[in-house]
């Protein structure tokens, strides 16, 4: 009887404490680090936020939307070039549509971390073409206005695109 009463008291103590703690954590996680208070709280909450994967910015489609398109050019032993646009083969209805794009954004943004592995995988994928090298290229879109659309142009037309070489990766000899 006494234990039940204490358990009830304890419940009413623990429940609000946890709700407060968790609420504080999810409110602090996306907050900008502009004040000392936020920095202090974040330091205390960080292990909890990271361990349970709660450290999320919630900045959907902001400050920018989308990213550059990744293409690659394969050079074979005879010096012939083949250009591929991997996202063209993907379907909206399959989650790999987003996985591939996210991977491509990571390669474009951090080639020093991911380009070599991407190149090696692509060399292996196209082994039948006997590739010598893979050149990863980003196609960044520029401004495209409603007038451009009404005049029949496409946002990926060359006049709206800035092309940058991300990295050339040598394929291992067969």
């Amino acid at each position, binding site marked *: 009887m006494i234990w039940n009463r204490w358990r009830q008291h304890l*419940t*009413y103590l623990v*429940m*609000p404490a*946890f*709700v407060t703690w*968790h*609420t504080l954590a*999810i*409110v602090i996680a*996306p907050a900008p680090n502009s004040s000392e208070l936020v920095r202090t709280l974040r330091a205390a909450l*960080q*292990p909890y936020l*990271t*361990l*349970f*994967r*709660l450290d*999320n*910015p*919630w*900045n*959907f*489609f*902001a*400050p*920018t*939307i*989308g*990213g550059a*398109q990744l293409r690659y050019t394969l050079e074979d032993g005879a010096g012939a070039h083949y250009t591929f646009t991997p*996202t063209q083969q993907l379907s*909206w*209805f*399959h*989650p*790999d*549509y*987003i*996985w591939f*794009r*996210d*991977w491509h*954004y*990571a390669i474009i943004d951090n080639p020093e*971390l*991911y380009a070599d*592995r*991407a190149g090696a*995988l692509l060399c292996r994928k196209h082994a039948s073409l006997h590739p010598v090298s893979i050149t990863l290229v980003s*196609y960044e*879109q520029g401004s*495209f206005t*409603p*007038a451009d*659309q*009404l005049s029949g142009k496409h*946002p*990926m037309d060359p006049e709206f695109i800035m092309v940058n070489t991300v990295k050339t990766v040598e394929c291992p000899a067969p």
Partner: protein
Amino acid sequence: MPGPVTLARFARNRFAALSRAWSQVLFQDRSTSPLEFARIGIGAALLLHYALATPNLFDLWGDAGWMPRDVILKTRDPWMQSVFYYFGAPWEWVAFHGLFLACCAAFMVGWRTSWVKWIVLVGQISYDYRNPTLTYGVDWIAASLLFILCIAPVGRALSLDRVRVVRAAMVGDLEARLPPYSSAWAGACILLVQIQMAVLFFYSAISKLESDIWLSGDAVWIMFTTDEYYNRAILDALASHYWLVKLATYGTILVEIAFPFLIWQRDTRPYLLAAAIFLHLQFALLMGLFYFSFLMIMGHMSFVRREWLTRLGAAWKRAMGEMEMIYDGNCGFCVRSMVWFLAFDGLGQIKVRNFRSDPSPIVSDAQMEKALYLTLRDGRALPGFEAYRYVVLRVPGLWWLVPLFYVPVLSGVVGHPLYNWIASHRSLLSSMGSRLAGAPRQQQR
């Protein structure tokens, strides 16, 4: 002058009143139904999402895949943990992936929910942290909601766990009805999901208000011009009527900023909920973000009020009409089957009658000797397979049986013959069941 005893009593009474007010505001006893809808939806979405990833398992999360192990181990925070960091042989990836998919399925149907939910959470976090380049908004919301579902008492309704408990209560008495589970902790967890959704909308709006493309009202135009979301037909319409771009851009910000403030009020909640769901349906249909939109809508389920669900359940029962199953109480197998069947009837739509102790005015005993019957309010009496066929479509807990009774090939090849065989062998099945149980288990009324 009040003495110390009076003061102590006054303080205790005040504390008790404060405690009551606190618990009434924050921790009302709630059923877990809103969380169960989220559980079922999130479980199904995760199952489909990760099942589709199976052919690319090693590319996405393997050591020879897109994310080299040394890169992730070098760049990760020590609190970032993934089971994949500790795997070596390929079979370990395959085994864990298989276990994870099985747990997603179990989580969806609510089988052994109290522990499978933790494996689902560990899996979700492990996939995210093994290759963080693949994660986007949907993974944020999936992990956040899963965590709350893990600490919540889910699996107490709309689940096989609930079926098991109800079945155990009905074994002795077919008309026994267990009250729905409710607790203050369930209420607190529903509140946590609601706070999560409100915080998410708030920060989403704030990040847009700090972005030039959103402030200028051009964000929706830019979105559809990107290679990722390009849509010729939509761009043609937007280019001709650019005000639609402004409306959609500012409308999105307006919904997101209004949501965390107006969702709590009784009068405004339905509108905000409808607006948020409409917004996510647009994301799904126009941008192909099906998985993301679906999970967000599952999060919104937490705002569904108890009385809405009660009204919906009552309206469904009214629309479907009364149903009475008449069974043979001397047939142990029939009773056991009836217990299983009724355990899925969460809304209590089916009444039962044992014709041995309570003969039906509509169906004769001679008819009852041959098959189970279902009687309806309009006086119709459906025998055997037709009875089940009628019920499975009208009792939501039995919808999973609909293919067996309605898909022509399944119904013809499996459903009908199976039922006929069981009906003609029920005495044998009863005696076998009794022998297995170690004692005769017949229900007499």
